[in-house]
């Protein structure tokens, strides 16, 4: 039986093998039982508004999508793969320039074919999230 530590290590390698997530510098902090925490460092390339130096919404949605998918895959009833069906993101406030963004996703329900996920992104400067997201993910179980 793989231990939790093994599982986290496997998941970390899995996330690191996603080219776009790696390009944005994402790193897995925690994973297990349908929950995942992934951080993305502040990077000048990701700026959406040069006046305020705030990170672009698109980069935050890439982080949310990756984290939500990881949460689905860590669920005990997960299939062998997953794909995003839909994702809604609410941008609640501008992220603080210079601060890393951390996403926390929870897969709160899973059926045979669909996983439902909630996620929040915070920048460590306030209790109010930078963004929240809800999504539905396809669960691939094979034929």
């Amino acid at each position: 039986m793989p231990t939790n530590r093994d599982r986290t290590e496997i998941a970390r390698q899995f996330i690191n093998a996603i080219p776009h997530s790696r390009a944005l510098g994402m790193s897995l902090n925690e994973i297990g039982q349908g929950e995942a925490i992934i951080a993305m460092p502040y990077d000048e390339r990701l700026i959406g508004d040069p006046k305020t130096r705030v990170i672009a919404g698109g980069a935050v949605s890439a982080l949310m999508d990756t984290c939500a998918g990881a949460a689905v895959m860590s669920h005990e009833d997960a299939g062998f793969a997953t794909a995003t069906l839909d994702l809604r993101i609410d941008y609640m406030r501008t992220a603080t320039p210079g601060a890393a963004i951390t996403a926390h996703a929870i897969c709160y329900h899973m059926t045979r074919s669909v996983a439902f996920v909630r996620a929040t992104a915070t920048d460590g400067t306030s209790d109010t999230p930078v963004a929240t997201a809800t999504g539905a993910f396809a669960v691939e179980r094979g034929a």
Partner: protein
Amino acid sequence: MSARRAPEAVQVVKERRDRALATLVGTVPYITYMGFKFDRRGDELTAIMPYRDDLVGNPALPALHGGAISAFLEATALIVLGWSLVWPRIETGDALPEGIALPKTIDLTVDFLRSGLPRDAYARARVTRSGRRYASVQVEAWQDNRDRPIAQATGHFLMPRQDD
């Protein structure tokens, strides 16, 4: 009333519009980093996401990352909306100021319809409502076949203040 002005030379008009578009797109470093391009025909814009290996989300298939597709849709919606705001000013012959203020995304809902293949993607957006404070934008992305979209999205945006 003065006599009607003669129409401008086509090259003058095109250059002014293309310069304005480049200014608008160039204000966002993230768009530059992601490599998104905008093709203009009159006032209609088509966004292009040229394929790159670092846009992949599933190397096994391979398929584009959902996050890259979301980012592409959002950037297209934002630029098309911003473009619709500056268009009247371009047509009166004014140059765009550097560091023009773009709208801010309030929310974005993305439907992933098909997996994104490892090749270029295109997107067009339609501003369905543009008010003084808020706007709603629909956007669709496709690859080889226009009738088989890979993703569609609806977003709400907060307009830049008029005095910005």
